[in-house]
């Protein structure tokens, strides 16, 4: 395929060709970064929580401040809930659940010397002290949440304390927290320092996300305490098969109200766990939708521009196409001519666009804390734009190929 005639034709249409090139360059730069941002957000939104999300339902119950025996009421409630057909297990927690936003975190230190240093400098910086989130709950929490115990043991009935007046003697931590507190060592049996208390680590679970997310490095720092909630309000977590969740929520509410009518079970505050998670990430999901729409819009406008311009050129050059056909070019030659011309323009745009993509990425890195664009995005983006260009020019090129040779001899 001779490139020289194509290039010399383009030279006669310098302005339009360079405008098209510029369009492709902009689109390449922006779409590469937009796709990267979408991938980043999707990674954030799909962070695994460690619990059996599809099987959990949540019911929130508020009693009244004058209630004198929350423990008895909780015991009755849990018995009533477990009696519902389909409920495999149920626990009561105060309010903290992964991605529930109600976070209670405590400052802890791995040993006495780091505790002393932190108190001296009134700051945990550089001492190895951390601030993980705390999950409390009645017996059976690990089983109900579906957590995987990788070392040590679950709590025994003797470990449990009631209410937050006293701290329990033992704790189960996540693997991520264990690695940060005691890097390279076996955390079982070690004592964590919390305020004035020493609490022994008896178990390690694989993964449990915090109620609120901060940075990926600390999002897995959670601890589970054998502490039974002792307030008039409580959250019940029920585990069942996914298809039973709606029915169990309805029957659960009825069972709770039947067990003791002097309480409030707000229908708006009971939901399957998956809805709570969706609500937490709603902003990110919207942003993903917006970015995808923006990327598609950009590609659409560029495709329209390529098609519109190519259409125009075909009409403008009808005579020269006819001449070419008259002296022996086949339809395929004409088609290939237009596609090669498009390939060249888009190629030039991509070269410029790759440079712009990096510049844009550096700007975004500074202002929006985006990581650096990985290199493999660029050939993928280039390929995508080439395909888009070829697809957009297909219809005008076919129309050009259909121009009959007799156009050459007719006067304009």
């Amino acid at each position: 395929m001779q490139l020289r005639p194509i290039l010399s034709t383009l030279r006669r249409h310098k302005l339009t060709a360079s405008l098209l090139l510029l369009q492709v360059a902009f689109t390449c730069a922006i779409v590469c970064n937009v796709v990267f941002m979408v991938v980043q957000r999707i990674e954030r939104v799909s962070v695994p929580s460690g619990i059996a999300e599809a099987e959990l339902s949540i019911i929130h119950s508020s009693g009244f401040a004058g209630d004198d025996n929350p423990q008895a009421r909780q015991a009755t409630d849990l018995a009533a809930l477990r009696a519902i057909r389909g409920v495999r297990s149920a626990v009561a927690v105060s309010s903290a659940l992964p991605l529930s936003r109600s976070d209670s975190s405590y400052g802890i230190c791995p040993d006495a010397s780091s505790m002393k240093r932190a108190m001296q400098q009134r700051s945990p910086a550089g001492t190895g002290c951390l601030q993980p989130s705390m999950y409390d709950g009645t017996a059976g929490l690990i089983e109900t949440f579906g957590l995987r115990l990788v070392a040590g043991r679950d709590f025994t009935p003797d470990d449990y304390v009631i209410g937050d007046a006293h701290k329990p003697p033992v704790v189960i931590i996540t693997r991520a927290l264990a690695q940060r507190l005691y890097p390279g060592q076996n955390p079982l049996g070690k004592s964590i320092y919390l305020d004035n208390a020493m609490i022994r680590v008896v178990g390690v679970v694989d993964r449990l996300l915090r109620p609120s997310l901060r940075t990926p490095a600390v999002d897995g720092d959670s601890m589970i305490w054998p502490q039974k909630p002792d307030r008039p309000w409580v959250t019940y977590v029920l585990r069942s098969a996914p298809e039973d969740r709606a029915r169990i929520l309805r029957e659960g509410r009825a069972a709770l109200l039947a067990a003791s009518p002097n309480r409030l079970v707000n229908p708006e505050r009971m939901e399957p766990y998956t809805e709570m998670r969706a609500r937490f990430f709603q902003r990110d999901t919207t942003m993903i939708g917006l970015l995808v729409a923006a990327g598609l819009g950009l590609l659409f406008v560029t495709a329209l521009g390529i098609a519109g311009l190519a259409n125009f050129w075909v009409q403008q050059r009808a005579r020269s196409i006819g001449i070419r056909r008259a002296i022996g070019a086949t339809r395929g030659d004409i088609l290939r001519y237009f596609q090669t011309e498009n390939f060249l323009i888009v190629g030039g745009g991509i070269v410029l666009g790759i440079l712009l993509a990096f510049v844009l990425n550096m700007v975004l890195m500074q202002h929006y804390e985006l990581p650096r664009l990985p290199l493999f995005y660029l050939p993928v983006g280039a390929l995508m734009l080439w395909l888009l260009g070829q697809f957009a020019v297909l219809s005008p090129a076919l129309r050009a190929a259909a121009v009959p040779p007799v156009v050459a001899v007719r006067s304009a």
Partner: protein
Amino acid sequence: MFRYSFELAMHGLRRFPRTTLLAVLTVALGLATSMTTLALLHMLSADPLPGRGQHLYLAWVDTVQAKLADYPSLNGVTAKNYRRIKLADAQTLLQAHRATQQAALAGLDADVSTADGDHVQQGQSLLGTTSEFVPMFGVALRYGRSWSAAEDDARAPVAVIDVDLAQKLFGTGNVVGRSIRLDQTVFRVIGVSAPFAPQPHFYGLDRWAFSGSDLENVFVPYTAALDAGLMPGSADGCDASTKGHGSLFDVDPADCAWLGYWVQLDTPRQVADYRGYLDHYATQQPALEGRTRQKAQLHSVSEWLTQQNVVPDNARMNVWLAGSFLLLCMVNVAGLLTAKFLRRSAEIGIRRALGAPRGAVFMQHVLEATVVSALGGVLALPLTLLGLWILRMQDQGFTDLARLDPVMFGGLFVLALAVGVLVGVLPAWRASTVEPGLQVKST
């Protein structure tokens, strides 16, 4: 001349109608997205308290007796500094009363219930503040009154609650004289206010900035709140001499900086005077060795919001995305118009051959581009309203502000015209450089 060029421009639009339609649609899309995001940004950057916001200032003196280490970094995230002051400094400044009006305030959390415990609203946001807060910030009172300076000094357990909370607790709006419990302590309600939620929540950015649903619904004297055991949740640095009983991360009300101090200053002269007073106050504090940081600051509301970078990143990023989309659309339309104008080279050549100057040809084509863009602007208006409606559907706290006000409305048309002229310049220039002679010869 202008009318003739305009007629020619309108005539030119009717040639190649599909291309014209494509150009108009592209411009409309670009304008609509830009306008939507700009309208939201405009609303987010607006004055949170129209009419009062320009007279409010945040006063800060740095009297924390501690080494200037980085503020404690918890969980890998460095805490921001919200320019709060210590209790002793707040009391001194309040007593000196050098501004027209002034208030010290801090956000607190408590469970609010009726005195007998029948109805409980958990986890409510309170504002512990002083007597001049309600008149200064313009909190509208439906019933009753706000407390007086004497009640502040007496640490009286009184409260002003908002009408929605009164409705939830007591079932009625006028609850003046009744008692409520904040956590366990009894407070007497002396006033009921309308809901007060300026966007953004500029006087308590440590709690939230924009929120459709978060607001403070109880106002109490901070002295009484401290007596009731309500502790501030966060602070900007504590004295090194704090005894440190309790946990590592508690806030000690006596030695930590947890109160925001806002003053109302009406004239520039008063602002300068108050700034001088603050500097003087700061220099009188006992000095620490090795400290060279600035001692006192006075920020207006807009400076404060800019400094704290309150406008959400998402909103700004949306504007950039939309701006680049508009740029792309403009380049696209410029290309289409260039091709269209050059198709009519024969007519341009004839016109030039008959004596039209280049300027006339240029004007005709620029006008054509402007008309295309104006039509795009007209089409963009319903698209913008649609876009703003879609934004409002996203429940993100600040997106409720996505509305088109008259300023933005006019801005849309100005933008459309500007886009038209810009887009038309290059193609029109190219059209005006067509050689008449070449065109008049048979093709």
